């Protein structure tokens, strides 16, 4: 087995040390904004390290705990970039609420470290370690403002339900270990193919699927998601809605496509029912929401339904499509919550549908970006969201899941309704008389424009990223 190879984990180590340094610096008089730039630089540095050492072939490090591969690198790059995006959007929002501190940023970096580890895991324990490092950091990020009742409630809900999910996952892992006597994922896969204790293995699979669904926020394990998204400070919601979704995808892929590949017949059926439930619950309940934050939360559930549709296919094409979906979704989700964070002011959160009214008149640039986001989420070509959907449907049909693609298609029509309602509020309705004017500061305008442009560019030329996703799976 491979020897101790610190170079393989250079981005993680860099990120972790950077987080520690940030904690130390937080005790000095350095301003929060400076620390934010520092955090972004550290993340960018980690991304650069990753880029320089892009692996050409699959290997292992740390005695098989850690996978070195293009798949790992792709996922890690996505996580790092999504984290940078989420932190960049949240500067003003955090500063206005006194949350722009070294602690928040360091927690963000630790969460990112956990996600990177999760993405690289080749061993069930490494996987669990990464997951917990990510989750515990996220709980703390939400709860950082200890006098904010809603945030505390959200953090507690997230913690309790997240702990249950971790428990389920761990129990599932232990059952799989009992059935296969292996913890390394390739070895688990080899042993699972002809395990004698098939009943135990299947029970383990059920627990693992439930745990992963919890982390993804797929129905019927979605109960925590709307409350947490809604209660958390918008900046934290944005953080949770971006990179951790890619990490949750990595979790599902490592466990199901990696370790339990031989049971694909069993888990694809399970995932299909989760996908249909998520599509239904997410799209239908989103219609009834009056808060944009909650609406986006339910839309997140529905997007996980689409993402699962890709994994259900159980083919390399399907995994790649789901990966593309996770990246595109992170981009859209960060943009959506980012808008809410940018349009919020120190004394007033921007989160209800009524706040959106007449936005096209009050701030044309923000309205234009939101228009792009909403149409992309609804899956209207030629925007990135459409190709994400096209790719997962194509994979699902290719694997014989035509009915699932049809169901997903019809639910995307239901989804289009509530996205269009936002467009309607922005463009067709006049602003309320007392609605405050909203402005975007220069750098944020640039960021929003870049985000919108990226969605359009990925819509016009999705080929490159899609191809990269497919290559990551061989």
């Amino acid at each position: 087995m491979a020897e101790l190879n610190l170079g393989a984990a250079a981005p993680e180590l860099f990120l972790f040390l950077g987080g520690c340094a940030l904690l130390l610096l937080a005790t000095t008089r350095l301003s929060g904004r400076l620390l934010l730039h520092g955090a972004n630089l550290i993340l960018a540095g980690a991304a650069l390290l990753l880029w320089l050492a892009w692996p050409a072939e699959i290997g292992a490090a740390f005695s098989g705990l850690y996978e070195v591969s293009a798949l790992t690198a792709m996922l890690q790059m996505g996580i790092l970039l999504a984290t940078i995006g989420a932190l960049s959007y949240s500067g003003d929002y955090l500063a206005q609420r006194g949350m722009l501190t070294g602690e928040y940023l360091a927690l963000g970096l630790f969460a990112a470290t956990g996600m990177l580890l999760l993405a690289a895991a080749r061993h069930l324990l490494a996987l669990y370690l990464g997951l917990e490092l990510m989750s515990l950091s996220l709980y703390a990020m939400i709860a950082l403002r200890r006098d904010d009742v809603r945030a505390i409630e959200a953090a507690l809900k997230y913690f309790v339900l997240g702990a249950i999910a971790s428990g389920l996952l761990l129990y599932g892992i232990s059952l799989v270990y009992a059935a296969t006597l292996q913890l390394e994922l390739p070895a688990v896969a080899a042993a699972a193919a002809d395990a004698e204790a098939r009943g135990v293995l299947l029970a383990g699979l059920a627990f693992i699927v439930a745990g992963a669904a919890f982390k993804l926020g797929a129905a019927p394990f979605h109960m925590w998601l709307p409350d947490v998204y809604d209660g958390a400070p918008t900046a934290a919601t944005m953080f949770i809605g971006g990179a951790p979704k890619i990490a949750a995808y990595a979790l599902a892929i490592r466990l199901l496509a990696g370790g339990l590949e031989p049971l694909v017949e069993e888990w694809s059926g399970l995932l299909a029912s989760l996908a249909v439930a998520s599509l239904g619950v997410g799209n239908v309940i989103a219609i009834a929401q009056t808060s944009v934050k909650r609406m986006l939360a339910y839309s997140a559930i529905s997007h996980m339904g689409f993402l699962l549709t890709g994994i259900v296919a159980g083919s390399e094409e399907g995994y790649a499509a789901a990966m593309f979906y996770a990246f595109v979704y992170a981009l859209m989700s960060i943009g959506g919550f980012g808008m809410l964070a940018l349009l919020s002011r120190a004394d007033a959160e921007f989160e209800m549908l009524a706040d959106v009214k007449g936005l096209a008149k009050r701030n044309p640039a923000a309205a234009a970006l939101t228009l792009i986001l909403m149409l992309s989420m609804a899956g209207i070509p030629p925007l990135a969201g459409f190709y994400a959907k096209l790719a997962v449907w194509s994979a699902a049909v290719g694997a014989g899941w035509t009915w699932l693609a049809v169901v997903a298609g019809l639910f995307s029509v239901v989804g289009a309704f509530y996205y269009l309602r936002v467009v309607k509020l922005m463009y067709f309705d006049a602003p309320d008389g007392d609605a405050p004017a909203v402005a975007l500061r220069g750098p944020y305008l640039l960021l929003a424009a870049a985000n919108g442009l990226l969605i359009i560019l990925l819509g016009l030329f999705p080929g490159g990223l899609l191809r990269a996703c497919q290559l990551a799976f061989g």
Partner: protein
Amino acid sequence: MLSLLIWTPIFGGLATLLLARDESGLAAAKFLALLTALLTFCISVLALLLFNPNLAGMQLTVDIPWITALGIDYALGVDGIALALIVLNCAVTALTVLAGWNVKRQPGSYLAAFLLMCGFVNGVFSATDAALFYVFWEATLIPLFLVIGVWGGERRVYAAIKFFLYTFCGSILMLVAFIWLYDYLGSFDILLMHRSYIPAEAQPWIFFAFLAAFAVKIPMVPVHTWLPDAHVEAPTGGSIILAAIMLKLGGYGLLRLSLPIVPDASVEYAWLLVALSLVAIIYIGLVALAQTDMKKLVAYSSVAHMGFVTLGTFIFSELGLTGAVYQMISHGFISGAMFFCIGVLYDRMHTRNIGDYGGVANTMPRYATLLLLFAMANAGLPGTSGFVGEFMVVLAAVKANLWWGILAATALITGAAYSLWMYKRAIFGAVANDRVRALKDVDGRELTVLAAFAALVLLFGVWPLPITNLIDVSVAEIAAQVARGKL
């Protein structure tokens, strides 16, 4: 060439949008929009000259790999039918830009939306890759959705969202059918789909998935209910584009996709389509008779006229198909002109209720003359383009089944009834009230638009040869594909 037809109006539209951001650039933006529209039209005429109507198959083709990961190409090409519709689209867009010149609210964005529309629609007509076709197909929804929603009437929000969701729902099923075909054939190439064998048990599924998209767009009974709502709430320009262009996308889809890809299912379920077409022609014609709102009346008459298109298509004879295409083009001009005429009155009186008018001929003689021509054309009077298409379809129907022909021919009577009755009530008679007395006749800009429409309606009424020559070979190809079948 075809790329130019798609991207000129799109970039022109975006430039207009940028230019119109402040008041000072508004005039320039308007002229840029008009210039772009005219330029696009000129390019389409150039394409017409380069096109050889005697050759079968696609011409002016482009094929560039685009999204290799999903096997999608940027593939364009036109046959006679597509090119005829592209020229129609470019001509109507130019007239629409002129018609929308004096819109009060944000005229720059308004005109830009039509230019974007024009580019997307040209994309639909020229795409020979199914995924590209779908991209353009859906993209057309966005500008029209915004046009109805921002510049529309009182219930515009309801109408815009209903329009969007109806068409989106149909399109998604078409997309799934495309994906299935991609999985089966390994390519999104429409021409490959034309040539390839499709198993008998899959054909009905694909046929109905396509039908869901096209029937909503055309629209056919019973999924036509979005159209009157959308028309009534849309601003004048939106109505013109909707009736003249958007409805043709559905008819084009049937000819380009349904018939050649799943010919056997098309033949098997032709009875259903013929029945629905006859219902549209007869029943919707009667519904139009009962309308008091001018726009609703013309909207229902559009549904009835599109019934001829589907009837002609599903008779499968060359005559029927030629009639269907001819009817599409002629209806583009006539319905566009009708909606513009209603817009002219609405701009002055702010009502579409027929009862509010009367005796308009006394105050607007020039307008009344031209409207009479369009009303006659709408009724299918010989000598106008409306007659040619309907006559061909009725003739084809009589050859196929005498009763179909007789039932379809009744439309000539109901058509005359609702068109001329509306004309009589609104235009003839004594001056109804002071507001009508104060009406001013059409100005130079309006007259230009109306005269252009009138010239086209009369030209293609007495001289159908340019169009039939252009589409003959393509129509024969489709008829042969259906006759041959795939099983």
